[in-house]
């Protein structure tokens, strides 16, 4: 076992993090996280996933440095060039460099998953904690609404929302977020039910804290860890749904590069110019695989039962 993760930690920190008897809640929590991180690093596939994610971020951040051509302006004299030479992944029907479009497309992907995460998670947490804390008919109504959203296959509902809202990246994000929140609401409700009866919540209530204050200050923070894990597990699915919407023309507006749309653009000439729709699909696959590998690694660390 390599355990380079332990080796690269400065000795002082390591001692503090691995202390048998933590002296503060913070130390205990960080120590727990550190042990999880070490377990995570022992999983080569999970580390591969993490590496894929870091590469994605690198390309998105330094897109102009790793590309030589514009992702938007095409060279009509260089239409549909096969891979090799100056355009190492070839060019599309408008003479745009496919590598450049894939690299810039990573920004679109990152924006979508980030925006979906910060939109869907808050919806879920507000609905779930409110249902769990208030109880009664409010809980019944909110959870029935949650069930109703779960009664659709995600992609189909996202399609309906996106079709009604119209094409565009904001609408695609909204459509995906509107279909992604129900599991988060369920998790938040379950967590709320376990902390609702605890003494510290009772103490807060007796000392006169309003329901809103208890929800925001004392209950929501307790839901965060499991929610963050679940959100990161869902990201691969979000990427595939976003790509599916893009493929159906409901993603970003052209000429902005988006991988799903690029696959769709290449469909017409797939038999002669296979590279136009092959490479963007590989990009979607790699990034989604990366997130799935991270997710599997996280699950192994946090829920050892699956083994």
């Amino acid at each position, binding site marked *: 076992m390599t355990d380079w993760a332990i080796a690269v930690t400065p000795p002082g920190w390591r001692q503090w993090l691995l202390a048998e008897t933590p002296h503060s809640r913070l130390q205990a929590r960080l120590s727990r996280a550190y042990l999880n991180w070490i377990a995570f690093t022992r999983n080569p596939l999970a580390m591969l996933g993490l590496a894929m994610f870091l590469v994605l971020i690198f390309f998105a951040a330094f897109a102009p440095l790793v590309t030589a051509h514009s992702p938007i302006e095409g060279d009509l004299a260089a239409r549909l060039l096969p891979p090799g030479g100056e355009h190492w992944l070839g060019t599309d029907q408008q003479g745009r460099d496919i590598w450049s479009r894939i690299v810039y497309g990573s920004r679109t992907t990152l924006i979508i998953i980030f925006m979906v995460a910060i939109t869907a998670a808050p919806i879920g947490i507000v609905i779930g904690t409110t249902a769990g804390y208030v109880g009664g008919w409010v809980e019944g109504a909110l959870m029935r609404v949650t*069930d109703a959203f779960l*009664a659709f296959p995600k992609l189909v509902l996202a399609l309906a929302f996106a079709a009604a809202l119209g094409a565009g990246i904001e609408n695609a994000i909204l459509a995906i977020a509107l279909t992604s929140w129900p599991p988060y609401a369920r998790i938040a409700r379950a967590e709320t039910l376990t902390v609702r009866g605890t003494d510290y919540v009772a103490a807060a209530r007796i000392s006169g804290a309003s329901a809103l204050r208890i929800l925001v200050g004392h209950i929501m923070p307790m839901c965060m860890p499991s929610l963050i894990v679940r959100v990161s597990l869902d990201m691969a699915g979000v990427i595939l749904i976003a790509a599916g919407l893009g493929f159906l023309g409901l993603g970003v507006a052209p000429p902005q590069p988006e991988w799903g749309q690029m696959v769709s653009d290449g469909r017409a000439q797939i038999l002669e110019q296979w590279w136009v729709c092959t490479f963007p699909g590989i990009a979607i*696959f790699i990034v989604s695989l990366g997130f799935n590998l991270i997710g599997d690694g996280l699950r192994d660390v946090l829920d050892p039962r699956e083994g």
Partner: protein
Amino acid sequence: MKSLLRLLGSVATTLLGLLLVTFIISRFLPADPVLAVVGDHASESTIQAARVRLGLDQPIIVQFWLYIKHVLQGDLGLSIRTGLPISQELLRVFPATLELATLGVIIGIIFGIPLGVWSAVRKDSMVDHLVRFFGLIGYSVPIFWLGLMGLLVFYAKLDWLPGPGRLDFGYEEMITPVTGLMTVDTLIAGDMDLFKNALAHLILPASLLGYFSLAYISRMTRSLMLGQLRQEYILTARVKGVSERRVIWGHAMRNILVPLLTVIALSYGNLLEGSVLTETVFAWRGLGLYITDSIFGQDMPAVLGGTVVVGIIYIFINALTDVAYRLLDPRAK
């Protein structure tokens, strides 16, 4: 009996919620339902007449009630593109999806369960890693892209399989739909060549969906199987000399059959989702292609009609699984 009533109640409330969601999409989102029906250049009086005809002059709660009533009567409105009742069109395209998804889930079961068991029995071996990774690829690959690649390789390059569509070009008029399932209809027509043609067209899209269902089924089988193999009764059986094959397939398998049924039903429901993109790639005239074609045709009532039907099928599958669970698992009684 009491639990059955409770199940019916939960189906009814979920259905109500589902209709509320589609109702909200149809009434509150930017696309104006009246303009969608009469077009952009209609006169004021036409618009007013359409409002009354669609019931849009009523209070919103009455509108919702009318909407529920219509859907329960099987009335999903008229398609803007064709002017035909949407429910009639959905009925026409549904068998194509049923045929595809059923064959897909059968492929998923045939390969997924043995792979999952194999992977669980050889936990942490090379086989286990390979099966898990193969499944993970299924979770990660965009289905529409894999479909295009399949067409590129098996149709365009190798010429082993036919291209998109349910039959070769021009053949579809030769078959009168009876069941709507192309393989069955060609058999009824007694034309073996057409039957083979229909089957050949099914192979690629069904294998594609089968792969996705395999990824899910093998993963869940592995996890369920591991849970059983840790139990003491397995140890007892092994100690008393029961053959490994009987321990796995006779003892452990028996105990995971019921939860496995839920997994299979869920994967059947998920194939409805997968079929939307698969049908688009393979020009397969089913429910999924109907929905995406309606999106391109700006036919919002048809999109929502298709969405409602998919949702209802989904609820129905879940309820059916619940009933089966109660019947098969004595502990659930």
